[in-house]
């Protein structure tokens, strides 16, 4: 009986680890302070493109006062992944918009869950201060 219990514990260990990890990440992203950081397009073309946009953080357009430190913590954002995954068709449209960011007046921002000393977690892409899917829906209606 004891052996069977231990065996099941061992077998369900991966399940537990993944569940715990997900729980931790969910808790962190929900409880952390949210900061809005301006982003700009970055060459997104690779063999698996079409499902995400690739961006760079534009610190010049970012409000640094929103951070608890009072300045932009650039080093903390240095290692974050610069990919934001989107549906196949939306990715193409947003990607085009990002590439034409300089010619068309569109502002891109990324909402991050931010805790000092930890890696920020990307939560939502904003286009002209709207959630990206709201923006696309509004554009379609126009």
């Amino acid at each position, binding site marked *: 009986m004891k052996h069977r219990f*231990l065996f099941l514990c*061992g077998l369900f*260990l991966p399940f537990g680890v993944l*569940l715990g990890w997900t729980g931790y990440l969910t808790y962190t992203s929900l409880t952390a302070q949210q900061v809005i950081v301006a982003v700009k397009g970055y060459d997104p073309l690779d063999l698996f493109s079409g499902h995400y946009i690739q961006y760079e953080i534009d610190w010049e357009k970012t409000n640094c006062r929103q951070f608890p430190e009072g300045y932009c913590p650039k080093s903390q954002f240095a290692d974050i992944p610069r990919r934001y995954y989107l*549906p*196949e068709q*939306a990715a193409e449209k947003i990607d085009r918009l990002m590439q034409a960011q300089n010619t068309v007046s569109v502002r891109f921002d990324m909402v991050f869950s931010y805790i000092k000393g930890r890696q920020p977690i*990307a939560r939502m892409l904003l286009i002209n201060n709207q959630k990206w899917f709201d923006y696309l829906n509004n554009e379609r209606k126009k």
Partner: protein
Amino acid sequence: MFECLLLVLILFLVLFQQNKTDFMTFLKHSKIISKNQLSQIKLHEKQYQINLLYKQKLISNEQKKRLLQQLEKPAKKQSGQKFRRHIIGGGVICILAGIIALIASNWQELSSVAKLTGYFIVFAALTAHFAVLFMKNKKRELWLWLNVGWIFAGIALIGQIFHLNGSGWDVLFFGALLSTPFISLSRFKYAVSLWSLTYGAGVVFGSSPEWAFLWILAVLPIVLFFKNNKPAAWVWCVSFIISLLNTLWFSQLAKAFTNTFMPLAGAWIFLAVLFSIVCVCRRIIGSCAFTKVLRSVFYIICFCTLFGADYTYSVQEVVLTPQKMLTSVWGIFILAALPFCAVGLFLKDKKTAYIIWAFSLILAFCYTFITFQSAGFILALIVFAVAALFFAHKQKANSFYACLFLIVLRIWLQYFVYTVSLTGVGFGLIGIGLLLLCGRHLLFHASGKETQ
């Protein structure tokens, strides 16, 4: 550009096909067809014995005919059944892949909570089902590998939902660690080799190799719990060696050469050291289980180092270029060489195997200097190479045609994802799967009626 390369590749394959006589000589040389010949010899022996019985008038002419018919029937029946099973298997795989592609193309329409809930429900069900099968001592290998695949899928899913940092190598490392309990229970002969490949690649090329050796201490209790299983001991042994070598050598010395062309030199030195260890151990201990593990580690790390060195050299830019396309053809050439190499090694024709392996490595390193590569494509290559090795070793399918199939599949998918979209690929795959199943039904149903 891509079409031109495709034409060149087809031309190469046609030429290769025309030289089939040479190919057959090679097969004979490496004793690949010996198994088939052996079964034919056995059949001839039995036929000879029946004829002998008839000559000695121990059986009548009718009895002799019946016996001969019975001898021939099962072989034909078995090969027919196998062929039917392969078609059904191919059809089902195509349909499943198509469904996965369709889900993938509409993936972002689902909410994060729905994705994660669905994932964990399926995971719990899979693990519970495997546990039940294991306790009842029933066939469970397929479910075991489904669990392993599901772990990797989960890591990728969580990473995607929370937009986490980390390379593909980290996914391999973490996935291999979590799948350790399942691998320890596997009955598949090469489970440990596959696991080592994954773990080794993750450790050597992951973002925090220094921690690998400490991580293994965490795995140790799990493995010790399954200590009665032979694979468990192997898992521990392999992971220990990889981690130790990595910590002592790769992370300390080879890292010093980063950002120059020196990773390649570092890789060569690393291979040389490993090869020396294998040679020395074989000389001292002889051929025992420990040296077998070392040898398999050597082959696996050869492979990882080759791709890893390539990755380190060209990690900076991820842009679609003609060079990348050229590199893909290089990958295909390597893949084409791998089955021969593997077959040669497995059948102990070491001289041929080493020549081909060395040739592939030299070719690969030459191309590495003049081309660029992306991480995702390397991973895809590794997956296909493992599949090719598996086919080659199993010898259930002709290694050459298996390799051709993989190459065509890779090109086909790449081409269609670009031109049609993933949704189109999904529908295409489902269509092919249905065609295979319907074709198989029509073909064999008709032939069944004729024979009746």
